[in-house]
């Protein structure tokens, strides 16, 4: 009994003597129970955790796939939009060219028409000028003629006295007589 007690006492007190050490008493360290608990935990926890993590992984995968598909769709749309833009740009270029040529043609037509009318105008101006000159000349001539006739009339009126009158008459009579004589 005493020995047992002593051994108990010794057992109870040996940790105080040393410093760090290993407790090899399997029952006191509760090793078996801990092993069972950890085993059960791993056995059941593994399935639950695996399900949980697999679900999460699947969710992530599907999200990634979805976004990938969305990205692909968006890229396709972008490509389509780019092609359309190119086409529209080409059309715009064509329209622009057409417009330019149209404008060019219009311009030419306009210039031609204007030059024709300008020529006509020039011609009519020249004619008008010619006619004006002619008229002015005619007027000047008429005026000169009138002045000469007036001068001659004035001279005639001033110089025609009786003696000259007689003489003229005589001369005329002589001329007339000569004409009679010849007959």
């Amino acid at each position, binding site marked *: 009994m005493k020995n047992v*007690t002593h051994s108990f006492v010794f*057992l*109870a007190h040996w940790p105080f003597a040393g410093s*760090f050490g290993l*407790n090899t008493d399997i029952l*006191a360290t509760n090793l*078996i129970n801990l092993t069972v608990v950890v085993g059960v935990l791993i056995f059941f926890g593994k399935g639950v955790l695996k399900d949980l993590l697999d679900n999460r992984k699947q969710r992530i995968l599907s999200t*990634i796939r979805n976004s990938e598909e969305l990205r692909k769709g968006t890229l396709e749309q972008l490509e389509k939009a780019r092609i359309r833009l190119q086409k529209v740009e080409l059309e715009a270029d064509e329209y622009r060219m057409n417009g330019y040529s149209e404008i060019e043609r219009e311009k030419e037509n306009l210039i031609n028409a204007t030059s024709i009318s300008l020529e006509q105008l020039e011609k009519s101006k020249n004619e008008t000028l010619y006619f004006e000159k002619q008229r002015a000349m005619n007027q000047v001539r008429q005026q000169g003629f009138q002045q000469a006739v007036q001068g001659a009339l004035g001279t005639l009126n001033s110089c025609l006295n009786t003696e000259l009158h007689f003489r003229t008459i005589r001369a005329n009579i002589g001329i007339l007589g000569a004409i009679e004589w010849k007959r």
Partner: protein
Amino acid sequence: MNITPCSIKTLKGLYDISGVEVGQHFYWQIGGFQIHAQVLITSWVVITILLGSVIIAVRNPQTIPTDGQNFFEYVLEFIRDLSKTQIGEEYGPWVPFIGTMFLFIFVSNWSGALLPWKIIELPHGELAAPTNDINTTVALALLTSAAYFYAGLSKKGLSYFEKYIKPTPILLPINILEDFTKPLSLSFRLFGNILADELVVVVLVSLVPLVVPIPVMFLGLFTSGIQALIFATLAAAYIGESMEGHH
């Protein structure tokens, strides 16, 4: 005459071998402070477990997470959800704090329940979960207090203290008291639960070494997880409470 002391001695020896050591600590003397070394050692182990597993898991991050990374991302998602529901919109900066609290407490508790600490003998006391010691839980609770004060003050400035006279100034003493009861209840709840769990297991083991403690150990695992969750949730709730109501 001779039997009585002997039997007493026997009983004492029996008591000692199956004894539950409460209040026995392995002290280190560091700069005039007495340190509970067993708590430090187990804390280091817990920290090593956390850091090591995290480093191994995220050493080679993939777009499609592999097993370890997947698990840690799941944990992070869990913590973020928790902080978001408790704190609200501005939960972002507090995720690391809440996550640290939750993971440290959780791994501490579970290490106490799952790791065979008692294989290693100390000169005094025994190794157990770090949260088994009131100093650890008080430190965690005081950190939480500091965190929610910081959160409130940085969000609202000095008008944070208006909450002490709301809804009526009559409640001022109770509101002030709350700041003391919050860390107190946090630390004592965690400490008491974990200590009780481990004590129950130890006592049962000393009475019936096999099979019987196993259900209690599972219960202990459950409560440990719940306690970690409660601590993290309450810390987040306190932080959210001190930040709310600001326009």
